[in-house]
């Protein structure tokens, strides 16, 4: 037997829970190995101390307090048993009136919902601006009558829909053309 095995089996050795062969091997190893003998003695001495700790007794109040708690438990158990015997007339009347009230509320709400279900949903009318053909814009003469790209139907429509990014992108795309048209207008006015 080696020291590792001795330590592993030590609890069973102390408790006399080993068979005769193992017990004998443990005793032999203890006699031969000083370290394991020391380990065995240390543990047995420590356990002896622990086992001889004085026993503590319940206090004088223990019984009285336990009695009081048992009585309270018994009362609560009696209550719970009474609850399982069946409802009294009063509790039955309360429960019945509760069920009736709940039924009334349910029926009233169901009627309201049903009447709402029969109404048709009326959506707000869609307001659109008639698009100006792009050919008209492009063929218009340069001058005050020409429609500015700023007022193109696409921009107007997108602005009214509340999309802030799209008009900005459109403006950016059309900016060079817009500047050119403005320049032409200025030139024509100077003439």
């Amino acid at each position, binding site marked *: 037997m080696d020291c590792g095995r001795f330590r592993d089996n030590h609890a069973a050795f102390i408790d006399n829970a080993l068979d005769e062969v193992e017990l004998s091997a443990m005793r032999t190893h203890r006699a031969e190995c000083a370290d394991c003998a020391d380990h065995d003695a240390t543990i047995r*001495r*420590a356990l002896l*101390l*622990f086992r001889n700790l004085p026993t*503590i*007794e319940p206090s004088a109040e223990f019984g009285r307090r336990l009695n009081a708690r048992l009585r309270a438990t018994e009362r609560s158990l009696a209550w719970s048993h009474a609850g399982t015997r069946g409802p009294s007339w009063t509790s039955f009347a309360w429960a019945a009136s509760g069920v009736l009230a709940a039924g009334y509320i349910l029926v009233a709400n169901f009627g309201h919902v049903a009447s709402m279900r029969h109404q048709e949903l009326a959506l707000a009318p869609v307001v659109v601006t008639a698009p100006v053909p792009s050919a008209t814009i492009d063929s218009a003469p340069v001058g005050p009558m020409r429609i500015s790209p700023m007022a193109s139907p696409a921009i107007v429509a997108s602005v009214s829909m509340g999309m802030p990014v799209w008009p900005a992108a459109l403006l950016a795309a059309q900016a060079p053309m817009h500047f050119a048209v403005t320049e032409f207008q200025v030139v024509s006015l100077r003439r």
Partner: protein
Amino acid sequence: MAAEVAFKRIVAPKWSTMEDSAVVGAFLAGDERAFQVLVERYQTRLLNFVYRTIGDREKAEDLVQEVFIRVYRHLHRFDRSKKFSTWVYTIASNLAKNELRNRSRNPLVLFQTIRRNWEDEDRPLQFEDPASRPDDLYRKRHLRELVEASVARLPEHHRQVFILRELEGKSYEEIAEITACNLGTVKSRLNRARTSFAEIIAPALR
């Protein structure tokens, strides 16, 4: 009928010779005195077990009372093919574990326990055996405190196994059932607990 428990040390011979299972049977058949017998049999053992586990005397009494309340409430559900003592110790073990868990979550409880222990230390020695010499008393008390402090330093799951084996003399199988562990775990925990306890206390004994 209220479950009046007289808590007298005298238990009728009829009860003292009865097995736990027979006493439980008598209680379930309506004999309230049987509950007193069960309390008598287990109150001191459970108190020592819980006290050594949690280290607080007052709280240990509360917990042992809670054990008996639970036994009283649920005895009709107890499987009588099993050992009553194992069942009772399982309840006590779980309550002690919960108490330790709550204490670790609530530092105020820990502080109150430490304070109470200080007050215990300040208590005069007049309650101890007056026949002993003062230096003997001091030595014994010092040794007791040393052992208790060493046990308290063991990890909770090691401590329970250690106390159940060394103090209560429970078998490995019973400990496995009480602590809800397998047999191998019980053996290894017990081995480690014994070694740790010896290592903690050994320097103080040299």
